[in-house]
Structures are given as structure tokens and as C-alpha cells.
């Protein structure tokens, strides 16, 4: 089979993760909870280890369930610390994930000592260059893309549907919680719905494309878009565009220089952010000059 087809599928898969993450990440950035993705990438470790211990299976879907449970648990603890114990959002996130990660490390050390071979990297640090080893073939020859893509694509559809149908609720609870509450809108519901989808999509993407890539996609493209636009929908769309652009640039750069694809894609998101930052600084400065000149 032609190699370029594999290349295209790698880019399509990365772009799907990019769009899923940019859509959710836009709301995280606006709610000042951008670090939640990073937190989840660490705090799911005990879930993975426990899933393995309980099921004695190394099947990835078992571990994904463990991870997903701990992803949701992470959100519950963060919310509890933030709302009930009145901690700052950043402190709540910091406490939760370091603590859960530490538990995961201890569990892992304890059980690997007992001769069990569990490699956290098999779940947490997938590498996108490997996805084409798992192909979806129909009738033995019709190639329908990598398994990873079909794993991630439904998540993208769920996230898209959630944001399209829940747009008003997400917008008002991100913008003005107290006001939303005065209208009888339940902030808690919207927060948990959003955070559960963040958990689901990060965990589902870890295995195929790697944690770094997911966490990077969740924050950097929406942050770039935030610099450029003054409306929510354009911010989300631009976030997706930057994510796709990074996937293409990062992929071909990695291929030309034989580097890590995930690494190069994340670097590309960073470079796009930098360009946007410089542009927005120049733009704001020239605006200021104009208003002074008037």
C-alpha cells in the first residue's frame, strides 16, 4: 500500500484529536481551568494500575475504564476542594493530581516488585507514529484507516454534539456563574458535563497519540485563538484550525528529520502560539498609538 496513505491517516487522526481538544479546551481556557488536562494525564495512573490489579488483564480497554474512572474522580476532588473547601482553582488542581499521581507511583512500584510486568507507558504515552500498525481492513484489502482513528472519532462526534446543543449553557456558565445561577441554571451540571468529556477525550486519546499531544492540544491552540478573536465561535473554530495546521506542519517536519511526531506537533502548536502572541502585541501597540494620535 502507498506510504502516503498512512501519512494522511496519521495527520487525520492527529487532527481529530486536535479538534476534539480545541473545542473542549476553549471552554477550559475561558474558565481558567486550562491545567485540568495536564492534571488528568497524571491522576489517571492509579486507575490504570488498579484496573490491572483487579482484572489481571493487560487489555487496553480495561485500563481505559480504570483511567476514565479516575479522570472523573479527579474532577470531583478538584470541584470539592474548589467549591466546598474554598481553595483556589489552581491549588485544587495542583493538590489533586500530584496526590493521585503519587498514589499511582506507589501502587506501580509495589506491584511491579511482585513480578508483575505493567508498563504505564503502554497506556499513557502512546506514540502517534505507531498507529498505522493497527489497521482497519475490510475484506482483507479495503483500508479504512488506523484503529486509533475509529477509536477517537466517536469521541469527537460526542463532543461536537454536546457543544452544539449545549452551547448556550456552556457559554453562560463560563462567562458569568452567579448570573447563570440567578436564572436558575445549574452551574454544577454544566461543569461536570464539560469535565467528564475532558476526561473521556483525554483518556481515549492517550493510548493512540500520547499524553503530551492531548494536553498540548487542549491548551495551546485555544490560547492562540483567544489572542486573535473577540467571539466565542470563531475562537473555537480557529483553535481547531491551529490544531490541524500544527498536525500537518509537525508531521512533515518530524518525517523529514526523523524526529518524534508527537513532539514536533506540540512544538508546532507552540510556534503558532508565539507568532500569534507577537502579532497581537504589535496589533495592540499600534491600536494604542492610533487612539493616542486621535
Amino acid at each position, binding site marked *: 500500500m502507498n506510504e502516503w496513505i498512512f501519512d494522511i491517516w496519521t495527520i487525520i487522526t492527529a487532527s481529530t484529536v486536535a479538534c476534539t481538544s480545541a473545542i473542549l479546551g476553549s471552554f477550559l481556557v*475561558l474558565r481558567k481551568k486550562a491545567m485540568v488536562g495536564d492534571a488528568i494525564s497524571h491522576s489517571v495512573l492509579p486507575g490504570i494500575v488498579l484496573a490491572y490489579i483487579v482484572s489481571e488483564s493487560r487489555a487496553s480497554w480495561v485500563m481505559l475504564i480504570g483511567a476514565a474512572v479516575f479522570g472523573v474522580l479527579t474532577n470531583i476532588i478538584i470541584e470539592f476542594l474548589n467549591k466546598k473547601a*474554598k481553595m483556589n482553582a489552581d491549588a485544587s488542581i495542583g493538590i489533586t493530581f500530584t496526590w493521585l499521581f503519587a498514589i499511582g507511583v506507589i501502587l506501580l512500584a509495589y506491584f511491579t516488585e511482585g513480578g508483575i510486568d505493567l508498563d504505564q507507558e503502554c497506556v499513557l504515552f502512546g506514540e502517534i507514529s505507531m498507529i498505522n500498525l493497527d489497521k482497519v481492513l475490510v475484506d482483507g484489502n479495503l483500508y479504512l484507516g488506523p484503529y486509533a482513528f475509529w477509536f477517537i472519532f466517536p469521541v469527537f462526534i460526542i463532543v461536537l454534539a454536546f457543544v452544539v*446543543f*449545549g452551547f*448556550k*449553557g456552556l*457559554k*453562560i456558565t*463560563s*462567562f*458569568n456563574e*452567579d*448570573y*447563570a*445561577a*440567578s*436564572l*436558575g*441554571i*445549574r452551574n454544577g451540571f454544566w461543569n461536570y458535563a464539560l469535565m467528564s468529556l475532558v476526561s473521556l477525550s483525554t483518556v481515549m486519546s492517550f493510548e493512540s497519540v500520547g499524553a503530551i499531544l492531548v494536553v498540548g492540544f487542549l491548551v495551546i491552540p485555544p490560547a492562540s485563538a*483567544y489572542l486573535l*478573536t*473577540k*467571539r*466565542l465561535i*470563531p*475562537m473555537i473554530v480557529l483553535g481547531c484550525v491551529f490544531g490541524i495546521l500544527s498536525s500537518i506542519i509537525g508531521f512533515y517536519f518530524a518525517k523529514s528529520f526523523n524526529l518524534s511526531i508527537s513532539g514536533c506537533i506540540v512544538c508546532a502548536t507552540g510556534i503558532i502560539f508565539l507568532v500569534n502572541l507577537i502579532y497581537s502585541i504589535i496589533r495592540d501597540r499600534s491600536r494604542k498609538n492610533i487612539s493616542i494620535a486621535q
Partner: protein
Amino acid sequence: MENKSIDVHNITVSYSGAPVLWDVDFELPTGVLAGIIGPNGSGKTTLLKTIMNIVKPVSGNVKVFDSNIDKVRNRIAYVPQRESVDWQFPISVMEVVLMGRYSGKNLFKRTTKADKEIAREALESVRMLEFKDRQISELSGGQQQRVFIARALAQKADLYFMDEPFAGVDMATEKTILEILLKLKDEGKTVLLVHHDLRTVREFFDYTILLNTRLVAAGKTAEVLTEENLNSAYGARLTLLEEVGKEIKKKDFPLREKDFDDK
């Protein structure tokens, strides 16, 4: 009291440490302009939020229009304190005002034409229609406040809660807001607002609630704003503040922010 709009019954509120409101108890009739005044940190914002059940009291209860607040949410409107708003949020003036038409029930439905028309009228009434496509950070302080008042007007409520609507506004906006308040009162609506300027309180407000964690006094403005009550709420500082206020007024000191877009 007949036709009660708000009945606050012995509420005590605490966030984590000491109580912020202690055993506060008062009633408010309908159809009045009422002011909550008190020093910074005296619990004014918390009182508004507790009445709307955004903050839950440790003890006591609140009735609005003789029922649980959740049953009458479609009859109340809210202008939050400007410090609580994220002004950098990517949202336009029109989008903000349209939120006045949201409710717990219609969140999954599309915004209707009628809603858009109501939002336009609300913007018109605060003279902000021409700015409807601006992002909210691109407005002056007075314009921002007017947008948030328009959002409350778009709610078409009977009872309005406004948290320091006069904070950081220019002269023109102050006038507009006062006109709106008086018009609401004419229409038989009730307005409860947190306010600082004792002069306007004396002049325009029928009822006053004087707060300093405890309720110092509540009732008709003239009866509440006595030297004794003010001293017990503010300490001796107030009389000084009022003197300074008078001086400033006399000299017409240009303390107010210029309304750069209104020229």
C-alpha cells in the same frame, strides 16, 4: 406588611470563617426603590446573593413574592458587581444582553426573534444599540454598566437586584441609570440596589437597608439614615466622608471617568 417583595428571615451566612451576615432580618414591600448601604466587606453583595439563593445561608430563610425563590426566578433580574465579570471574555454586547432571555428551561432551545427584539429594545433604552457588535472590553466603564443593566431589563422582571450599578460610571450613565430606576418604579417594579452615594439615597430611595454584618437598620430612608445609625454602621469615618463628598460636589471636581466613546 402587605404585598411583600422580599422577606429575609434571620439569615446568617459564612463562607469559611467568621459570619459575613449575622441574623439579618427585614422585609421589603413591592413597588419601591430600596438601597443597601454599608462599608466595604459589610456583606452587601452576600446579602443579594443569599436572597437569590446563589449563596446558601447557614441558618434562616428567604421568601421572594411569598414563595421559594426557585418558583419566581422568571420574575427577578440581576446586575452583578462589575468586579465579578470577566471583561476579556470573547463575547459581544448583543450576546450579553440576549443572556437576559435565557432560563433554566429554554437553554436547549434556539434564541427566538422575539427575544432578539426584546434585547434590542433593552439596548435602545440604555442608548447602547449602536455598540451591539462590540466586544465588552472595548467599552468604557459606564457603557459596560449600561450593557449589564440592559441585560437585566431584557429579563422583563418584577424585582431587580443591582450590585453597585453606579460604580465607575460617567455622569451621562449615572443620569441614564437613575432615569431607568425611576421608570421601573413608575411601572410598579421593585428595585433593590447596593449603593454608596448617600446623597442619591436620600433623594431617590424610599427604603434603606443599613448593613454591617449585622443589620443596623432597615425601613423608610428618612428613619434609617440618622446620624446615630450611620455612626454605628460606619464609625466616625462616615461623617468625614460626607464632608469630603460635599466639598467635591461644590467644586465640581472632575473625578469621573471620561466617556471616551460618547463624544
